[in-house]
């Protein structure tokens, strides 16, 4: 396409087309200088940049991710997330521990290929720009983050547990099964968090996003992912996390409850987070609570494979309120 044709396409997909000369970029190495209204061109495909994604976490606005562009595919007007090559290494906090984490575009590109057409994972394709950078073009999912969905449920825990939780649990099991399948492909997700599951508005299906974190190998290859799954499980069963400071804020009843807790009831990684949720919500089934206790401070046995966690969780299904 020449510039006039690109401009015509832009006109048909946006109400506010860019003015002046179009900046068509095919080498994305300098991604910081790619701005809204620029057009990215890869292998004859054109994408109008609308801005950057923001590291929005837990309801807070964060920093723009300059290597992740929001864009419109000028072939059909669909919304895309375009992830450009950005290498970084940083310490990731896992509770009270830190591990060296690396951002790997090639890992994410490989997982995109391996999970193509599997709607439990974000969908997209890989292209190389003219400088050979591995660019990932990802379909934008219209929907809400799992964290927001659970957090915004305006019901008490007991109502949640009896009326909403069984369905949520089914969906979460499906999401955990997806991670298990990924592990069997020899891959890690790398950054399992409750805001890395999106719930599609149109289908209510749960979809994992963002696979570009990686680590050096350790003896327990799946440990970091299992840590993340444990957090999501706890968040799901508890309809959020529950901590000692939360109990302190509940007045005499909370203080009384706190006195019933021991070290064994608290998270292995977050010293104030309660994993023995049955003490707070006695109607939670024993089987489910037992699975949670594997993430507690005095657990003797840890899950090493997602198969093991899934097996325990499937056994909980019979005890769910139906």
């Amino acid at each position: 396409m020449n510039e006039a044709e690109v401009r015509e396409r832009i006109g048909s997909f946006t109400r506010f087309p860019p003015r002046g000369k179009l900046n068509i970029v095919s080498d994305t190495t300098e991604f910081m200088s790619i701005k809204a209204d620029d057009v990215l061109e890869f292998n004859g495909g054109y994408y109008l940049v609308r801005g950057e994604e923001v590291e929005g976490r837990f309801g807070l606005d964060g920093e723009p991710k300059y290597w992740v562009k929001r864009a419109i595919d000028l072939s059909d007007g669909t919304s895309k997330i375009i992830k450009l090559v950005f290498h970084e290494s940083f310490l990731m906090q896992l509770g009270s521990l830190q591990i060296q984490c690396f951002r790997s575009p090639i890992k994410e590109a490989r997982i995109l290929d391996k999970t193509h057409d599997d709607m439990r994972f974000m969908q997209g394709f890989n292209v190389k720009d003219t400088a050979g950078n591995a660019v990932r073009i990802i379909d934008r999912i219209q929907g809400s983050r799992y964290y927001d969905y659970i957090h915004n449920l305006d019901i008490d825990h007991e109502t949640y547990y009896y009326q909403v939780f069984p369905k949520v649990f089914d969906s979460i099991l499906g999401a955990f099964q997806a991670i298990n399948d990924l592990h069997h492909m020899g891959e890690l997700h790398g950054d399992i968090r409750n805001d890395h599951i999106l719930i599609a508005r149109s289908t209510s299906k749960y979809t994992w996003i963002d696979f570009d974190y990686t680590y050096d190998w350790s003896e327990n290859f799946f440990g970091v992912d299992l840590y993340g799954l444990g957090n999501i499980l706890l968040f799901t069963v508890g309809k959020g996390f529950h901590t000692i400071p939360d109990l302190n804020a509940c007045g005499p009843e909370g203080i009384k409850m706190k006195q019933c807790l021991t070290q064994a009831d608290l998270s292995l990684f977050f010293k104030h987070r309660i994993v023995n949720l049955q003490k707070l919500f006695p109607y939670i089934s024993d089987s489910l609570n037992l699975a949670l206790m594997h993430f507690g401070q005095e657990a003797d046995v840890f899950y090493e494979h997602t198969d093991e966690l899934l097996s325990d969780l499937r056994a909980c299904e019979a005890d769910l309120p139906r």
Partner: protein
Amino acid sequence: MENRVLIAIDLSENSLKAVDYVGRVLSCHQDTRITLLNVIKEPSSDLVPDAGERHRQVEELRAETLKRMEEAAGRLIALGMPEQSVRLKVQVCSMPVSVTDLILKEVREGGYSTVVVGRRGVSKREEFLFGSVSSKVVREAHQCTVWVVV
């Protein structure tokens, strides 16, 4: 019958403690053959995409490892083990496999009766996230004796 002992070492101080312990205990058993095993993990291609660079890093590590293992073998000999009874083995793995699995495979295939590991003393949190070779060896070893030196 020759008694075969495998010492799995990672060249940490604790591993060398295990070497010294074995040397002290077994130096009076001259029919024992001791193999020192070290596993080198090739960097992940996600972290070091260039194959040549990965190879260079592995070779650098292998040279350093062999030097340290020869020192470890020297400690066994100094403690009275016959030189011909001490062998060195370095295994390079390019896939994210469990070191425990490699150790136990070597135990099975090499006909070892005893496997010796050092224990780093990791916290529960670290064991959850990163795993522990000594704990897994204790749990998964069959038909052999396991010595854990702490």
